[in-house]
């Protein structure tokens, strides 16, 4: 799997269990059983309680956003403006704006660090491999990952811990649907 293929995959990052659960609880999305477990846990974790409270404040503020309506004047001319644009020849075919690398990484902040680390390691590995510096023909410490392909619904990264021979075929897949 080439480096560019790794980058092109969108990472459905496995969400950290606890943080995800707290956010879902604050949003009112946990099941009764989950909710009870979370409440029991919150009873002994002050910082977790503050996080849930902060989440609830933020979501409440967002949900309370009053719907924004067109003014009477805007409403009156809306349809005529649409027709004018149609008469002008419709919408010219504009290619959708692809997300930049920064947005992709911003979408998945944790992936950015891991990806950078993996990219450096892979580049180093390829370079060292060129000079036969991996040692045994099975790669460093006897492990060589020859190829990796992700299925449609997942992304994959080769992760080698810095200064360690431990290699992980790291699979990112979407959590099971709610």
């Amino acid at each position: 799997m080439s480096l560019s293929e790794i980058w092109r995959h969108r990472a459905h990052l496995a969400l950290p269990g606890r943080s995800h659960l707290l956010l879902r609880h604050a949003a009112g999305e946990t099941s009764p059983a989950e909710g009870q477990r979370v409440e029991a846990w919150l009873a002994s974790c002050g910082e977790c309680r503050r996080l849930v409270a902060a989440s609830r404040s933020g979501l409440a503020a967002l949900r309370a956003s009053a719907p924004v309506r067109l003014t009477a004047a805007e409403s009156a001319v809306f349809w005529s403006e649409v027709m004018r644009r149609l008469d002008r020849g419709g919408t010219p075919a504009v290619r959708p704006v692809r997300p930049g690398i920064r947005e992709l990484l911003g979408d998945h902040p944790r992936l950015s660090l891991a990806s950078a680390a993996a990219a450096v390691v892979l580049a180093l590995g390829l370079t060292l491999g060129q000079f036969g510096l991996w040692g045994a023909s099975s790669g460093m410490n006897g492990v060589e990952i020859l190829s990796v392909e992700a299925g449609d619904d997942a992304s994959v990264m080769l992760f080698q811990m810095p200064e360690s021979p431990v290699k992980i075929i790291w699979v990112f897949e979407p959590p099971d649907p709610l």
Partner: protein
Amino acid sequence: MSVRRRSVCLLLLGSLLSPLLPIVSSAETPVAFQVRVIHATKQPKGVDGRLAGLAKEIQELQKTFGYTTFQLIEALRGSAPLAQPWKTAIPGNRSLEIVPTASEGGHHTFAVRFVRSNGQVLVNSQVRLKSGATVFVGKVPHQEGDIYIAISAD
């Protein structure tokens, strides 16, 4: 053809074919490996003593990802002839499939597939392991932690 000539021909044929015998027999000889299903969490419980053989790797996972508990959920000894699949279920409605594809001089190549319960392949990889070496596949979120699968060549 006389009996003598026939014997000589058979002997010659045998000696020509004999180098192929290791290949044929190795294709049928199962390649052995070990699969350990490990549950890693950040709860304060500790490392399962049965993972002593992976002490170095466990230490690295601890250091890098901050896990504090490692529990061995399952330890399996698998084997399969070349090009034959070996499968096992993994917690989280996944399954692991290992197919030995080459085995020579203490180095073994495996196709490793990670599959969803509906048959959808999540990852398909080829790894080459020296006897005794271990590669990790992960991670599957499971019960407030993550599952890692350690695959070691015998």
